[in-house]
């Protein structure tokens, strides 16, 4: 069966709406805060991954320094909320404005470089920001970080819409931001911008000769990507209620962001979602020793036996190891990510 492109778009739009509707009613049926929390983390990862995807996936600029934008978004929003009593949904726009300035400065440095040099420069700039945030205690409270657990209630006029007493408002904000990021990505890829971005990714010199100003478009891609990343940062800061330099400006975070896309499928709109849906639950499962627990529960393993004790003791410690092994396997066997891999498989089947 084959569809015309428009029918296919219509079908996937329909599927997306269905999924969205299903996600919108999840809190009615899922009471477990833990389940909601995991979903919120998936949204957060989707936002981060999708935002990176615009610059890294579509424009081909592999920034390993997106923590810079995440961190600035987080710090600005939390600081404004704490010191100026500015509500986070207002403060995040101030964060976005600050991030655009930061992004243009970083862009003016990094976009002069290509390939591995660009990657290294993006790391260096972000490390400088982390170190500055650690040292400028007056501005950021240094390594002690900023604790912000009191969130002003969201009011519409005099009516309080939510006081953030449960996970549910965060769930909807996360979902809303994720949808926003996906819509922005969709709009970008279906516009002149998307064509210019991809042309730069494929061949910067050729794109240049076709009337595309690479510096301009790379900076546009960076600005969009950075602003969306800063929203993720602001959301994180409000949700977790604590920011400090290593968690919101660290190299770990930058790598994590790239990983979401690469595992899912770089330069595709589904990639970051798929990546987030895999990585978040996976790290939860590995981290919380669920594997040996389940094995015991199902009676496949004796908790007091040698193997059982060994697994119980070590699996929780080994989760980063397993994570590392997965990364290596994906890169070696699914270099286009899961989405790319599935496409190849289905295409192969169609051809056959």
């Amino acid at each position, binding site marked *: 069966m084959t569809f015309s492109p428009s029918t296919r778009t219509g079908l996937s739009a329909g599927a997306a709406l269905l999924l969205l509707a299903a996600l919108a009613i999840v809190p009615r049926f899922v009471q477990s805060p833990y389940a909601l929390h995991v979903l919120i983390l998936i949204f957060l990862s989707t936002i981060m991954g999708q935002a990176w995807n615009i610059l890294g996936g579509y424009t081909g600029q592999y920034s390993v320094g997106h923590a810079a934008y995440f961190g600035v978004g987080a710090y600005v929003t939390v600081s404004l909320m704490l010191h100026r009593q500015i509500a986070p949904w207002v403060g995040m726009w101030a964060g976005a404005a600050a991030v655009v300035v930061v992004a243009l400065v970083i862009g003016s440095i990094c976009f002069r470089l290509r390939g591995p040099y660009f990657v290294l420069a993006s790391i260096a700039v972000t490390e400088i920001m982390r170190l500055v945030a650690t040292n400028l205690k007056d501005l950021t409270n240094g390594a002690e970080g900023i604790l912000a657990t009191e969130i002003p209630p969201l009011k519409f006029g005099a009516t309080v819409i939510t006081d953030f007493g449960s996970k549910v408002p965060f769930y909807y904000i996360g979902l809303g931001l994720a949808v926003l990021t996906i819509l922005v990505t969709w709009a970008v890829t*279906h*516009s*002149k911008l998307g*064509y*210019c971005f*991809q*042309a730069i*990714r*494929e*061949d910067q*010199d*050729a*794109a*240049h*000769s*076709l*009337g*595309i*100003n*690479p510096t301009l478009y790379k900076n546009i891609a960076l600005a969009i990507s950075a602003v969306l990343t800063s929203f993720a940062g602001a959301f994180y800061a409000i949700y977790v209620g604590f920011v400090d330099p290593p968690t919101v400006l660290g190299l770990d975070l930058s790598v994590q962001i790239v990983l979401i896309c690469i595992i899912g499928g770089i*330069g595709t709109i589904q990639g970051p979602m798929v990546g987030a849906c895999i990585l978040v639950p996976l790290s939860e499962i590995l981290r919380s020793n669920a594997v040996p627990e389940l094995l015991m529960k199902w009676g496949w393993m004796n908790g007091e036996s040698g193997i059982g004790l060994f697994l119980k003791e070590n699996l929780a410690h080994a989760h980063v190891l397993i994570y590392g092994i997965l990364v290596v396997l994906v890169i070696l066997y699914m270099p286009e990510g899961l989405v790319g891999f599935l496409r190849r498989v289905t295409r192969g089947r169609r051809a056959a």
Partner: protein
Amino acid sequence: MAILVIEHVSKFFGGLAANSDVSFSMEEGSIMGLIGPNGAGKTTLFNCITGYYPPSKGVIWFEGRKMNGLQPDKVCKLGMARTWQKVRPLAKMTVLDNVVVGALARTNSLRVAREMAMAQLEVVRLHGKAGFLAGGLPIGERKKLEVARVLATGPKLLLLDEVMGGLNPAESEEIIQLILDIRTRGLTQMVIEHDMKAIMRISDRIVVLNSGEKLAEGSPDEVVNNQDVVDAYLGESHAED
């Protein structure tokens, strides 16, 4: 009227002169062949004209406008478009999308750009492969795609860098017809080519470069009969065959 005027253009890399003191001009609607042995500075001159390198000395005029220091994207928007000696398809985009990228130099509307792109694909007879990934095309079709892509940018002057390189005779003939076809639409073309028979057939005038300098200029007949050219270039070219 001269559409392009090259005045005493030189380009140095370190101490090495890739072009030195090259001057010539092109009439609107004409085809100029640019020939010379390997390393004569043909592609460097292309790069200078299209803004990839600023010339070290001299001036490039396009439609009465000084082009020195303009970036390639600006050059393209002013109406000069080039192809690449080694084809540069946007590999992971479709054939149509490749041409759409070119058309977007003229319009901001995707719908219009698609129509324009489709029209150009028809010109080069690639419309049947619009949905294929550009990276998967055979070399002959890649060359045609490259031409369609630059045509879509709506140029007044086309600079074609060895569009027949690596093609079989039948494919070359197709390209020759394409070039002649484009001329009938009033476009000016500068063609770098190694195939002497082809270049003699299509060019109105020919400029010969050797070691970065202009060795000769004239009609195909004049150039063929120029003793310097025969010594410096044709001789070597025959020896190669």
